[in-house]
């Protein structure tokens, strides 16, 4: 019987350019259940749910709500069908009150009556056990309160199907417990709830059923009571795939970086990195694995001098003289780190935001690295132009010309420009974050080969990646981050995908920051 499902997805497919985000996904959401949608980063969980909430429109497949085929073109269509999504980034207007935000855009008959709306909001809060003050301004609220407003907003619009995108990522354990209590109340009221998550212990705690996505494809579903974290991890990471990335044995490993007890707090005062200790060697690729937001960004930015470091030290060994010329990087600005002769090349996650200037051409972007050279007043454009031509030729960058704004290039070509420039600076340590995100297979391999070539030349390469298969084939050692802590450093040649996956999701207290 078709109508026993609140929502049914049949063969839903969504592609972004060359990347398939969702590949023929079939998924059912039952009435009155809490369903966990589990998967690694980039497995297409959020994209799939965005198609239910009207942000994206599927390329193929059909969506059935209460047994009827529907088309959802906009968030408003989703609301009309009783589907509401709470995004990771809240969509709230800061200077308005909770009530004003909740009634925003509603086409209710009659005059705007904020008092009546506030009364209804209080009723909803009492019914499900929320604590929120309708008169309070959003900018005065904590993250957890803002999330509550988002949930109430969805309920106020009569949603029966709630989708929460990683709701606990920004919450403290106490707030998480409160959220889960509320979700159980809503379930008891007959509402269907989907939680997008990759935290296994939360899956086990809150959900009735788990559906797993892997690389955009639907793997299967299982009742929570019939499974355990180990089985779920296996479903999530799948079997190892052979990629045939060339990985020569490291030669002449020389210590380049020594990170000791590094602790960094994020903007909310939560520890993003907690007592992180590891070494980086020239001539090898150190992979960094972890669920997104587990401190990878903070770690790289700390080394590049972009983070405020609470405690800990980062020592850099520029020459192979047994530590005679070592330098402490903590407390130095990015420019000072560069001026002191420290060769760090940093390919940031946000290519056009932090790496390149989108409206400038390749030549000018190359100049960002070299404009201090030459005569004091005049810049030297000849060398950067030569470099741009060279990068364009060697890395096969597809661009109308070296002066075309890089913003107009495709993601893969932008990445090639960035990596090419960083490598040209002849670094001793090359750090990359999500270097192949959004790139097609061929470009990805170009990037892998570039990194390996750097390794052979004796550069210490730090590779933050999402795809475990790549990490396992590209890296000599893999450091696993879990909630800002080092959860083991594994040998890339002997470890297994399951091992890495489990360490990503379960902090192993005993081993802690073991080397």
């Amino acid at each position, binding site marked *: 019987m078709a109508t026993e499902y609140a929502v049914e997805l049949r063969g839903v497919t969504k592609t972004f350019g060359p990347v398939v985000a969702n590949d023929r996904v079939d998924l059912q959401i039952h009435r009155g259940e809490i369903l966990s949608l589990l998967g690694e980063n980039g497995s297409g969980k959020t994209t799939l749910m965005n198609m239910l909430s009207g*942000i994206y429109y599927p390329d193929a497949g059909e969506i059935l709500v209460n047994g009827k085929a529907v088309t959802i073109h*906009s*968030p*408003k269509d989703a*609301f009309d069908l009783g589907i509401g999504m709470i995004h990771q980034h809240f*969509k*709230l*207007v*800061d*200077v*308005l009150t909770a009530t*004003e935000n909740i*009634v*925003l*855009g*509603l*086409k*209710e008959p009659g*005059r*705007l009556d904020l008092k009546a709306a506030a009364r209804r909001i209080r009723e909803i809060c009492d019914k499900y056990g929320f604590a929120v003050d309708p008169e309070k*301004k959003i*900018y005065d609220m904590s993250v957890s309160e803002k999330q509550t407003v988002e949930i109430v907003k969805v309920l106020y619009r009569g949603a029966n199907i709630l989708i929460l995108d990683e709701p606990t990522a920004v919450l403290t354990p106490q707030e998480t417990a409160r959220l889960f209590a509320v979700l159980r109340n809503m379930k008891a009221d007959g509402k269907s709830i989907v939680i997008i998550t990759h935290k296994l212990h939360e899956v086990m705690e809150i959900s009735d059923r788990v559906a797993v996505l892997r690389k955009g494809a639907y793997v299967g579903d299982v009742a929570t009571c019939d499974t355990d974290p180990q089985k779920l991890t296996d479903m999530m990471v799948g079997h190892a795939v052979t990629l045939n990335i060339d990985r020569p044995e490291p030669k002449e490993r020389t210590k380049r970086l020594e990170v000791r007890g590094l602790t960094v707090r994020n903007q909310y005062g939560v520890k993003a990195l907690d007592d992180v200790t590891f070494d980086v060697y020239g001539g090898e690729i150190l992979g960094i694995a972890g669920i997104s937001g587990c401190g990878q960004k903070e770690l790289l930015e700390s080394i590049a001098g972009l983070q405020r470091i609470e405690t800990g030290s980062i020592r850099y060994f520029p020459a192979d003289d047994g530590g005679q010329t070592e330098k402490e990087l903590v407390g130095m600005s990015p420019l000072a780190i560069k001026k002191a002769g420290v060769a760090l090349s940093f390919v940031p996650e946000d290519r056009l935001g932090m790496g390149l200037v989108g409206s400038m051409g390749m030549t000018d972007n190359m100049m960002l690295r070299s404009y201090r050279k030459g005569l004091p007043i005049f810049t030297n454009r000849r060398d950067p132009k030569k470099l741009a031509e060279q990068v364009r030729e060697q890395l096969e960058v597809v661009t109308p010309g070296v002066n075309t704004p890089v913003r107009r290039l495709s993601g893969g070509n932008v990445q090639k420009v960035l990596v090419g420039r960083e490598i040209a600076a002849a670094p001793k340590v090359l750090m990359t974050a999500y270097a192949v995100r959004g790139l097609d297979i061929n470009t990805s391999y170009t990037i892998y080969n570039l990194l390996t070539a750097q390794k052979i030349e004796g550069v210490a390469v730090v590779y933050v990646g999402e795809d475990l298969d790549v990490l396992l084939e590209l890296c000599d050692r893999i450091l696993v981050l879990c909630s800002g802590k080092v959860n083991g450093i594994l040998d890339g040649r002997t470890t297994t995908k399951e091992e890495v996956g489990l360490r990503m999701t379960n902090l192993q207290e005993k081993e802690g920051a073991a080397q």
Partner: protein
Amino acid sequence: MTIFSSQLFMSAIIFGTVILYGALGEILAEKSGNLNLGVPGIMYLGAIAGLAGAFFYEMSTPDPNGFLCLVISLVCSFAASCLGGLLYSFLTITLRVNQNVTGLTLTIFGGGIANFFGGALNTLAGGVGQISVASTSAVYRASLPFANDLGSFGKVIFGHGFLVYVALVLAVCMAWFLNRTRTGLNLRAVGENPATADAAGINVTRYKYVATCLGAGISGLGGLYYTMDYVKGTWASDGTIESLGWLAVALVIFATWKPINVIWGAYLFGYLRWLYNYIEGLGRSSQEIFKMIPYIVTIVVLILVSIRKKRENQPPASLGLSYFREER
């Protein structure tokens, strides 16, 4: 001649009304996130269109009907200003051109076109400074018949043309609209966070267009009031409208984007503007310093507002930014 003379208050209100219109229109546009620096140009457009409408009507008939004078000049002025706003909207909202550049261009464009047609009208009327729409101006300047019998205080309050009172009503209505109606709430959300408004099912583009065009129409009425009342139905290409337009933009900041504050702010600016005439023994240079006071006060307010960091007094959060849905 004291600083409390009723004459000074009269002048302050007349001056204030010009920038009151300019600022009210600009608030409406800025609440939608459009920083329209074309206010001076739009006031020019409103001024010249109203004047031209009245001029041709008065030329066409030996005995102009006062009501028709009024309607024709009002409609011409409002329509021309709206068109200016529409041009700005099309460039900034649809084509996503930089708002500052567009606004400044519109100011130059409006001033140029108005002075060109002002000169042309003068030629038609028989020579430089010859244009006069006496009948229309009289309608705009007509005050209540009993105003002169109310003493100097009564004259300050009741002795003005109807546009002075329309501006007050408009300011109050706009405050009510922005704070108490559903549409006003939606408009504020568009200016603060268009992505959120979009997700809530609000048509961001439509709100921006309508607010900017209507706002331009209102700003343009300031220009109309200037020609019909302030300079009594004549045209002078001396750049006064432009300086008034900039003062209106400053007034929006001074009023921290609140229509009610604009009322007293406009009159205060008017008072400060004419104060130098009423202080004995000011030299030419000190007069110029006095004329600067409104701008200095605006800077002081800006400094105070940014020090206090009260969120309600800040400009709309997405002011000056174009919105493009796909840029998530």
